[in-house]
């Protein structure tokens, strides 16, 4: 056996060149696919590729072994160009069992490569997966390239010396597979080995077994045992700005963005939430940041969660709450109170597929209507959306800025896909981010809590504990002039106008809308929001390269819209709005600007493919 040291640095010179690759690791929930994917992501990052990942969990916590609904997978798209999506089709599928093959085979592109563990193709597993006959023996896999390896057997073999039981030995097979894939793409094993040794520091034989499996898989590639179908590939490093990078998920980016935002205005964070898929990671991440002036509170339900957050804002903290669709629905009444009392509040909505319970682990962007309209009466607030994991960071800071500057709730829309997927992120210098300090009101002279800043229309924020500021607020209409309860007719009109005017007026304080691609001179513009950014951008980019006159606008600010948006849109012959819903932004744009925007809608619980968007654009432009 080759010694570890000598094989760590790989020679990639002799490999076939590739621009980018999409690979998906799929196996049973217990097969460690998320871990495998995570390690491969790091290794690709180190190799300098740009990348995007998409972890895909089963709905069940731990489904019975071998079932299709228990398949867990991790997709990564890496390359030398800017990578914006986790990829339309798979170049490579790693299938650790028949169920994984069953579920994922349709995502593989024609001629794509399947690496599979023949050791798992027992009759029982084949049947459980829903194959009538063994797919390795019939024509199911015609048209794909196949690499059939008894990974189970080879793994058992190579870890024998560490004296593990059968179960623990077999557990190493994901590392064996990873080793092989590392070899294919010339990835360095060093970081993974370090990581394994740290992770299993208390069980050194497990560490060693895993390292041995990794190396054995690699060696398997290195040696001649592989058919001619497979070879080493060279995916060169992407050109990216210099700096320190890390992988970041949307959930991490939001958590950190909120913390930075709160620091920039010198407030403590109170985060009141209730677990729900896929919003929980934000609660989990923030719960670990106690020493950064973050208090997290797992409430008894979503209503208590938002109410506690509003209470905290009232008391002078930055109140934040977070949930997903059904939980956000429960918060509607309380959001109305925050609007009526004009308190800062951030509501993070990690959207998932609906209606009702829907498909909790699947992504969708169908809560835009709920965000903009989902409350009783005329109750406007700020709605922001995020377009990529890294972008979640900036938008979260912006959410804090708007909430405190304008004394308003802000709904921050992300989604299940963004929360879980990752991309490399150039770590910013936090000190360079602009501050926007908050001053709680303490001037008793002529004070009343609903006096407004003439420019922003934000009301005074006076907090308990401040002498002379004692006052009462609530959800009943308040007098514009005194802040006291008022049942006066004209006053209600005035206050309604003030609330609406305040939110509309924010358009004076946000950036003008720009183009992601193209400009007013193009013929068709694709307008998107949220996590569809990647596939739209890539599609537009590709088609522009092919000579199509197509531009792209991607919205961060949805309420209010940037003030130049209407004019921008009116300059186009065609406006296409792709959404992972049945047509929500398109409806708002049509209403707001009376432009004949049309939707392209997909409600399948998963992101658009680049090709899907390309096709629609082409079809539209052809007539």
């Amino acid at each position, binding site marked *: 056996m080759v010694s570890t040291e000598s094989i760590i640095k790989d020679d990639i010179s002799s490999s076939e060149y590739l621009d980018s690759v999409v690979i998906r690791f799929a196996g049973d929930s217990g097969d460690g696919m998320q871990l495998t994917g995570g390690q491969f992501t790091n290794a690709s990052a180190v190799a300098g590729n740009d990348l995007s990942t998409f972890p895909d969990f089963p709905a069940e916590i731990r489904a019975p072994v071998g079932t299709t609904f228990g398949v867990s997978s991790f997709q990564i798209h890496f390359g030398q160009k800017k990578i914006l999506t986790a990829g339309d089709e798979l170049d490579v599928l790693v299938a650790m069992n028949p169920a994984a093959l069953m579920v994922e085979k349709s995502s593989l592109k024609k001629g794509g490569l399947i690496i599979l563990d023949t050791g798992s193709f027992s009759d029982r597993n084949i049947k459980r997966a829903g194959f009538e006959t063994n797919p390795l023996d019939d024509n199911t896999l015609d048209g794909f390239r196949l690499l059939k390896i008894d990974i189970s057997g080879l793994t058992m073999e190579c870890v024998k010396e560490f004296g593990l039981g059968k179960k623990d030995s077999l557990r190493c097979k994901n590392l064996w597979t990873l080793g092989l894939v590392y070899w294919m793409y010339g990835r360095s094993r060093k970081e993974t080995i370090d990581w394994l040794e740290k992770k299993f520091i208390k069980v050194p034989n497990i560490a060693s077994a895993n390292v041995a499996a990794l190396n054995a898989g690699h060696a398997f590639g290195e040696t001649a045992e592989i058919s001619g179908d497979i070879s080493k590939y060279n995916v060169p490093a992407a050109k990216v700005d210099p700096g320190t990078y890390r992988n970041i998920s949307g959930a991490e980016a939001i958590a950190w963005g909120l913390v930075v935002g709160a620091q920039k205005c010198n407030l403590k964070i109170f985060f009141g939430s209730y677990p729900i898929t896929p919003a929980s990671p934000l609660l989990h991440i923030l719960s670990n940041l*106690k020493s950064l002036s973050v208090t997290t509170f797992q409430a008894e339900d979503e209503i208590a969660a938002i109410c506690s957050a509003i209470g905290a804002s009232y008391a002078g903290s930055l109140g934040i709450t977070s949930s997903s669709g059904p939980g956000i629905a429960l918060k509607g009444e309380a959001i109305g109170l925050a609007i009526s009392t004009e308190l800062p509040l951030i509501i993070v909505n990690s959207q998932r597929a609906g209606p009702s319970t829907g498909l909790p682990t699947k992504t969708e962007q169908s809560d835009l209507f709920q965000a903009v309209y989902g409350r009783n009466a005329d109750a406007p607030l700020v709605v922001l959306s995020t377009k990529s994991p890294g972008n979640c960071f900036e938008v979260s800071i912006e959410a804090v800025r708007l909430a405190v500057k304008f004394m308003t709730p802000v709904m921050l829309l992300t989604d299940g896909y963004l929360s879980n997927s990752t991309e490399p992120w150039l770590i910013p210098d936090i000190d360079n981010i602009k501050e926007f300090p908050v001053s709680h009101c303490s001037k008793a002279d002529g004070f009343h809590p609903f006096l407004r800043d003439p420019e922003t229309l934000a009301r005074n924020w006076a907090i308990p504990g401040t002498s002379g500021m004692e006052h009462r607020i609530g959800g009943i209409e308040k007098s514009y002039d005194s802040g006291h309860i008022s049942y006066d007719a004209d006053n209600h009109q005035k206050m309604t106008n003030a609330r609406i005017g305040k939110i509309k007026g924010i358009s004076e304080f946000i950036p003008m809308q720009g183009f992601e691609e193209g400009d007013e001179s193009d013929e068709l513009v694709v307008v998107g929001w949220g996590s569809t950014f990647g596939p739209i951008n890539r599609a537009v980019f590709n088609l522009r390269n092919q000579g199509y006159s197509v531009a792209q606008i991607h919205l961060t600010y949805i309420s209010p819209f940037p003030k130049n948006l209407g004019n921008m849109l009116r300059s186009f012959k065609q406006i296409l709005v792709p959404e992972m819903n049945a047509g929500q932004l398109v409806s708002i744009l049509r209403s707001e600007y009376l432009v004949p925007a049309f939707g392209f809608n997909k409600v399948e619980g998963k992101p658009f493919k680049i090709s899907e968007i390309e096709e629609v654009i082409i079809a539209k432009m052809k007539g």
Partner: protein
Amino acid sequence: MNVQPEKLKANDFASDQEVRWCPGCGDYAILKALQRTMPDLGVKKEDTVFVSGIGCAARFPYYMSTFGFHTIHGRAPAFATGIKIANPNLDVWVVGGDGDMLSIGGNHLIHVLRRNVNLQLLIFNNEIYGLTKGQYSPTSRIGTRSPSTPSGSLESPISAIQLALGAGARFVARSLDTDQKHLPMVFSRAHKHKGTSLVEIFQNCIVYNDGVFDGFTGKDVSAEKQIKLEDGMPLIYGKERNKGLMLRENSLELISVELGKKYTESDLLVHNEKDRTLANLLASMESPDLPVAVGVIYCDPVDTYDELILDQEKKANKEKPNLKIDDIINSGYTWKV
């Protein structure tokens, strides 16, 4: 400068807003009693916050010159939890009616009690929905005729105190709107208790449920039909202090006995504020068979949620004294380009 006088007076706690309850409503008396209690608590006006849901009772904050937050129906305990955690310095009072706190708000009530957030919860129990014009409430007695139960209500009423004990409350007490001596005492005790203190106040809704408590609150009957609890003292009551409570033999049931012939004071149970079982027994006593228990029924403090959170935060800060967000962001796997 806004120098506060050494000691405030009851009047200093009245806001400038006109009180808008029905003339004769029991809420007035409670307001008065609380305004009279406040100066003795040694808390600054600006550090005091009244939080309420919706209902007649929930109008309360408007009439106090402290900070006040009139929120939404049933959720006041949740708002109060956020307020107290965000600023544990504040003295937080939650006020609500029986509908607000026990119907729509029941869940928040039991959870704030379970968490033991250091605040006072006052339930103005008039056994009716006042503000929405007289529908029966979860505390209404079986058979209550109301606009929504024209042939009489069918559900057993809920007992605020027993529910609270079941939820793990560490302080429960009871008093009456009209008892202007007892009420301030109970308020003071509730305030003194560290943790969530629940006070149920029988309150007369003169418009929709007038006289519903007369059976034990009427001037003529109160001494015979109420027992005022005092910690460490035998459970005696009656105008002549000639009645007492003891356990029925071989059972876990309270009975009322006459002192004198067969029984003497030493046969009686002694009130023990730390005895949860006794508390349950006392709370479940109902007129006319047994006297209604008022006063501090149970008081057995443990750590409060807000303190524990602070401790945990302090510990976290100590463990990682100069942690910055940059450290977090730069932790984990990073690489340079």
